[in-house]
């Protein structure tokens, strides 16, 4: 029996409400994913695809209304077995009109307390997270080392300040920050983007979490720094075997670190499978969006012949005006006459078309 997945998300829905348009922003609209223990799942998608909101929903950091409204997040880690969205249904009442959720009533304060009870001990201990633009993620009024010590004293048995400080310094060394004792006292404005990210990684891993969520860890950093951070994550993965949920729009970062990959578009997972299949250009069974995404990154061949990039027409999907049928239909270039009617009117579900390979496209369903 294969070990149960460390994290299993089932049909997660997270909505926000635009008061000016008086409509729902359906950022995450039915996402199902799972990560096996020790594995790194890469989630790739463009802006507005809902990948960051999915991560924040797992961590319970969604504050705007209505926020998480349905779904289950199973979490199995050494000794703990929990649904992070335990009895969410008791706090939320949904009403649908022709297949789309049109009314949401949510007891936000009640759910906030309940979520705090569930996540209180997990957040920062079992599940840790690092973010994009690391420089703004550190408290500008406190030294970097002090913030790491706080994490250690909060989440590990090392309560005594001196011991926690030592442990923090060893972690700074571990993430290859030069002269850690000096950097311990420095502030975020005195460090480069790369070094801030290393400090964040040290802070997250110092609590020895079971799951690390990395949301766009390399975005905004220079090319040379990006590759250093990716190397560091690779080393930490091989050394600690930590289960990671890696989120990025940069396909090369995902392919470098992930075991399996999920491609998200318009708030849903459109393809999910082992990294070497999903991301290799040659692999045939692929969702049209994934194929087009891979083709729009300038490859060696493109550059050689100074050829044009294969382009996905149209604009990135706006998650307020969702179409009736498949979300990618308007921009899809592999629609055949046989399935055009289905693509335009009914949304396909995520089905396993070959072992381990899931796709959400009528092209592969008989």
């Amino acid at each position: 029996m294969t070990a149960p997945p460390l994290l299993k998300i089932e049909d997660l829905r997270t909505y926000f409400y635009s008061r000016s348009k008086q409509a729902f922003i359906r950022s995450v609209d039915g996402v199902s994913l799972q990560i096996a223990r020790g594995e790194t799942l890469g989630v790739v998608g463009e802006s507005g695809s809902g990948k960051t909101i999915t991560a924040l929903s797992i961590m319970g950091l969604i504050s705007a209304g209505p926020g998480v409204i349905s779904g289950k997040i199973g979490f199995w880690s050494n000794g703990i077995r929990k649904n992070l969205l335990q009895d969410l249904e008791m706090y939320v009442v949904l009403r649908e009109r022709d297949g789309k959720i049109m009314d949401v009533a949510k007891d936000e304060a009640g759910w906030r307390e309940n979520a705090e009870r569930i996540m209180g001990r997990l957040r920062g201990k079992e599940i840790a997270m690092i973010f994009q633009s690391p420089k703004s993620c550190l408290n500008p009024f406190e030294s970097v080392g002090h913030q790491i010590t706080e994490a250690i004293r909060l989440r590990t048995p090392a309560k005594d300040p001196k011991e926690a400080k030592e442990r923090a310094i060893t972690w700074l060394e571990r993430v290859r920050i030069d002269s850690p004792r000096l950097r311990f006292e420095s502030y975020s404005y005195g460090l480069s983007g790369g070094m801030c990210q290393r400090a964040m990684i040290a802070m997250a891993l110092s609590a020895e979490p079971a799951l690390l969520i990395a949301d766009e860890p390399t975005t905004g950093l220079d090319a040379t720094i990006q590759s250093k951070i990716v190397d560091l994550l690779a080393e930490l993965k091989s050394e600690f075997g930590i289960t990671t949920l890696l989120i990025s729009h940069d396909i090369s970062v995902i392919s470098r670190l992930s075991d399996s990959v999920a491609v998200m578009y318009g708030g849903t997972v459109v393809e999910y499978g082992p990294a070497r299949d999903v991301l290799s250009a040659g692999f045939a069974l692929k969702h049209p969006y994934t194929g087009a995404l891979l083709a729009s990154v300038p490859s060696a061949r493109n550059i050689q012949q100074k050829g044009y990039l294969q382009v996905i027409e149209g604009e990135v999907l706006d998650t307020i005006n969702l179409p009736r049928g498949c979300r990618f239909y308007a921009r899809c270039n592999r629609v055949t006459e046989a399935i055009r009617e289905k693509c335009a009117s009914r949304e396909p579900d995520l089905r396993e078309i070959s072992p381990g390979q899931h796709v959400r496209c009528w092209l592969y369903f008989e």
Partner: protein
Amino acid sequence: MKHYSQVAGEIGAYSDLPFWKKADRGDLAYVAYGLFIVTLVLVSYALGALKLLPYDPQQISIGLLNAPPGRAGHLLGTDFLGRDILSRLIVGIQAYFLPGLLAIAISLSLGTALGVVAGYRGGPADALIAYFNDLVDSFPRLVLILLVIAAFKPDIYYVMVVVGVTGVPGVASLIAGKIRFLRQKNFIEAASVLGLPAHVIILKHILWYNCRTLLIIQATLGMGEAILIETSLSYLGFGVQEPTPSWGNMVQAGANYFLQGRFWPSTAPALAILFTILGFHLLGDGLNNILEGKRKK
């Protein structure tokens, strides 16, 4: 339970929703109340100027001292000399209306000019204007006014020039802040690279398009400020002197009769002050939330 509901299946482009649909109900109520007050003040000012009043505000009637509202045709009753309170309230607006406009005109025009120079030029001009702002802010406004009153004679227009000048730093820093925000987005550089001359960039793009709501809001808040100052001064005895009515001296005169249990002659003008200033504040804040965009929670 918080309720969210979406009515339409298809959502039109954001821009074709009229602005009152986009705004939230509270702000609309603020603006509605504010506009009601502004029209009331304008109408009263006109009535006062044209002398179309229910009674002669100066006409004393011994028999009706401190009459409660509604007595003998006096809608709002009479004061300690039997003069009709409603007419005196209407005429009372003369005391602050034009001076108020003068104050606003000064603070907006000077403020905009200094703000543009500070924001657009930057460098030493910026430091100089910052110094001027600090200097004006160092004076408690009423103390400065008392100084002017001591030096010159207690004329409301002198006072309103001072109120106008002390309003300049606020406007200037708002305008300069807006320009810095636009500069941060390289907006000003993009316009100058295109070849737009400086005066077009400043007048059209910065002031007309991006600062007009800001100036309207400052005007409403400025008027509220002017009323507060005028009424306080006339309470202190420096504003309009008896027998000409002003809301400040009516409150002050009426207050002497508190001890005899007659509150109304002092409370009526006080309520007038309260609702008018409230009107201008709500109008300013409501417009700000609708047009400048409330900071989303």
